[in-house]
């Protein structure tokens, strides 16, 4: 069964002369547990696609089925629940709450549900992310790479079925990048998480099961790297 399916997904910005079609009738199916890389030129619509799938943006047309339910029809409260429990979204630019400690930032989705993460899992993630000694700091006191890792931790903490990552390694060095990617792959294998990853990095893309290329808001190629 496909965990994710879109039909004719369209998103436009602006009106009249200045109208931009960021996504143009995109049909896409993703199986549960797949690791998908999305590539394309700057401005091709990758972030837009991820935002729509993550439920933080609303499409102008088309449907988004997640486990056969169209989230485009969800009301605000349901959609918030979806964002909290079903997907983890990592933005292109690190987005942490500056007034909350790193620990609280990571646990945020659970805290919003009035829950505490299991200690083991939390320690596990923190160790892998290498943030063990930075938990009580504020985001402003972290380096760019560390902040990005905290954002990844936040996306992983609830063990969401779907992980959407928008160039999570764009600001990181080679070593950090490799660590993060292997963390994602581990998570993908261990918890059967479905991952969609936007990247400009050829090497990163090659780690995926499948590579989708977008141009001008359309999918122009879709090939499996591994069966």
């Amino acid at each position: 069964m496909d965990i994710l399916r879109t039909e004719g997904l369209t998103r436009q910005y602006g009106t009249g002369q200045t109208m931009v079609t960021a996504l143009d009738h995109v049909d896409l199916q993703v199986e549960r547990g797949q690791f998908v890389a999305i590539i394309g030129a700057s401005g091709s619509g990758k972030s837009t696609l991820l935002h729509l799938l993550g439920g933080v943006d609303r499409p102008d047309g088309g449907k988004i089925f997640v486990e056969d339910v169209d989230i485009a029809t969800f009301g605000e409260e349901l959609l918030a629940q979806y964002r909290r429990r079903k997907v983890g979204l990592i933005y292109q630019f690190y987005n942490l709450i500056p007034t909350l400690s790193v620990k609280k930032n990571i646990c945020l989705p659970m805290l919003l549900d009035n829950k505490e993460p299991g200690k083991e899992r939390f320690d596990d993630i923190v160790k892998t992310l290498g943030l063990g000694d930075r938990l009580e700091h504020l985001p402003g006191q972290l380096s760019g790479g560390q902040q990005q890792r905290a954002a990844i931790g936040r996306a992983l903490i609830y063990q969401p079925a779907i992980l959407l990552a928008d160039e999570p390694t764009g600001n990181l060095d080679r070593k950090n990048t490799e660590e993060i990617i292997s963390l994602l792959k581990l998570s993908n294998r261990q918890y059967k998480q479905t991952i969609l990853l936007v990247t400009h990095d050829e090497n990163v893309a090659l780690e995926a099961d499948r590579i989708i290329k977008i141009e001008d808001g359309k999918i122009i190629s879709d090939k499996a790297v591994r069966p």
Partner: protein
Amino acid sequence: MNIIREYSLDQVRKNRRTSISIIVAVLIASTFLCTLLVFAQSFWNQMVQQQIYTSGDWDAELMDVPADRLGMVRDNAGVKAMFVKGDNQTAFLPEETALPYFLIQNCDSNYWDAMYEKNMILRGRIPQAPGEVVVSKDFFSQNQTYGIGDTLAVEIDSNVRTHMEGSQQKDADSLTIVGELDVSVSSGYKGYLAYGFMEPDELSPDSEVVVYLQMERRGKVYTAVPQIAQAIGLPKDEYGNYPCRYHAALLAWHGVYAPGSFFQSDVPKLFLGLLLTAGASMAVFAYIIRGAFGISAKQKIHQLGILKSVGAGPKQIGRTVIYEACILSAIPILLSMVLGYLFSFGVLSAYSGMTSEVFGSRMEVSFSPAAALIAAVFSFVMVLLAAHGPAKQMSKILPIEAVRGEQYSISVKKAKSHPVLAKRFGFLGEIAANSVNAGRKLYHTCMVTLSLCMLLAFGFLAVFTASDISNAQAENMNHFDVNITLGTGERIDGALLAELKAMQGVQGISVYARANCAVWLSGSDQSAEFLQAGGFDSADGYIVERVGRYRIPCVLVGMEQDAYENVLREAGMEALPESSAIIVNSVAKNPGARDYEAMQETVPYLNLRQGQRVELTEKYSDDTQGDYEFMVDVAAVIPSMPEIGLDPSFYTLPVIVPMEEYYAIIGNFSDEMEVYNYRNYVNYVVPDGMDEEIQGEAERICSAYLGSSDFMTSSKTERMRNRGRMTGATMFVVCSLAALFGIVGISSVLSAILNSLGQRRKEFAMLRSVGVDEKGIRRLLGMEGFLLSVRPILIGLPMLIIICAAQCYMMGVSIVEFLCAFPVWVLLMYIVMVLLVINGIYMLASKKIRDDVIVEAIKDDTV
């Protein structure tokens, strides 16, 4: 702690500037509300205290209660307290006194505690045991040998109703005088008024007393008291009512009304006025504070977007704003209680200092816990109202839009070019105009806030000024300089009137009495001219129609015989031997006219002729109790009211009769109306500058005859001075409230400006980095500050002028008069202050921005 709450608290701590601006706005706004409530409560308290002072602290009165039923009244579950007056006695005095006896009313100790007589004691103390009396002041002035502390041997004649008529017995007794009382009775009684002491339990069972009641539940008084009267077996009178009276004036202040009289009372109107004022100011403040919350929410929009995208629901997002509101408003609301009390204490003390001579008493500032609680609730509701908008807005916004933050939310529309500015200041002018346009919302808030505050504060002043001028105009129409009202509940002493009429140095005098009554006529009785102007049917509310007959309100005027005959002579007529009356046959042609002149225009009213007989009735409204009917014969019909100082109401027909005839007629009215209609009015015309002197002389004459509560004098100069004082004092209160409004407006605008400048530091650094020089920045910001401060004035001022003009038009006040009285300087001060403060802030900010190190400003990320 809940993560949303924790987040909100953190935000409040971190964003100090916005937090402080919200706190200040809430503080001042709740101080205003609190002040309003303290004013209202103090006013209410003043009214209640005054009412109690002058007429006692009772709810209802039962008359003719047999003494043996007192226990039943006292034990009634609905009665909280009972006090008794009665058991009247006549004490025959020793031979040498000017008048032969004391007329004694005995009161129990509760009565002395609760009622007003104790306030009329001039010297000495209240009676505390049987045999002690306080005596009216004329006793002391007429019998100089007696003083307080004297014991008199008297013979007491109890006015006890005995079963055998005429078996009055006299007992020898002694009375001790313990005080002097400021009361009097008509000299017709041949005695002095005195108040004594009694124990209700020791009354003889068949004596009758008057019982005053305080009720356990005041709201039930109108139903409970007749039940009590029935329970103790009091008889009904000829109209089917029990012999009870209610303290309607006091009850009204407590919100209790006789069935059907709710809308006639002023109290609900005052209350509604208060509610409207409170509601309107709450709405305005909520709008202003909403701006502050909006700024704070906008600052956090990016973070709220992140919270949303990791799954915070719309309710949780909304709650961040509401929590913020609660955290930020708790302390200022508490503090505002203290500030509001202090502020109103200051204002009211000053007010009462200015008016104490007019009212004869000082106003006490009162602020009960209940009022404090109401003020707090009002303030809190206002804060929630203010936070509600931004909370909703934030919870609705798309997460991704919020995350992207403001740089995308500015409309991409092509910025309007500003031809004037561009020409004058070139490219820089255009940037200034653009930045004003771009931060539209912000500037919108400033503008609305400042012009609203201006409108509210000065609009209120304008209304007040215009109505004040209009009152002054009405005063100038008054023909007489000194006015005296005499009301003892009985026919006024002839000797007193004679002395008043003999007053030296008076150019003109009128003495009259008046009573409301009515006449029933048919449509054919209207004059042709009046019919053309609309007739009876146009006088809705004044003239009542019942099956083809019309009830026309009349005022029966009693004039001294000689003055009456003078009027007749001028009309070329003679008095009729019996029930002779003069009809003043004129009616306002268009009473609805705005213009004073047009309103004065009259036409003949009715087709009444000399020699006709008219039947009048005491029952001038459906509520009037009595229905005595009487005839008068028309001796003359005159076209206008003689100048006696009486200005009849619209559609009211004056019927003038000689004084003796007047008394004969009202003697048959129902008791209450009879008592009221015995009032006499004496008016003097005096040479310029003499009025206060004459008033003083009149005062002296009257107090020799009457208790000080039985007469009232006033003079043009005194009224003018009092009105001047009142106007000054009220203006002071209104200005102080207006000042609060101004402070809220200016402070919230300030914080909006500071915030906007802070956010745009980067933009300015960018401008400088591409080569705009210091002078350019200064001009740019100078320009912006100018635009910002001038706009609210340009918009508010014309609206204010419209309000003033409308007010002048409605009150019939000329512009020049208005401008003389309106505190123009306060308005100018407000305008100058707005200009100074805003431009000053811009100047300071401009200096700071010019001193910024470019790189740092560009790197500096707020939050």
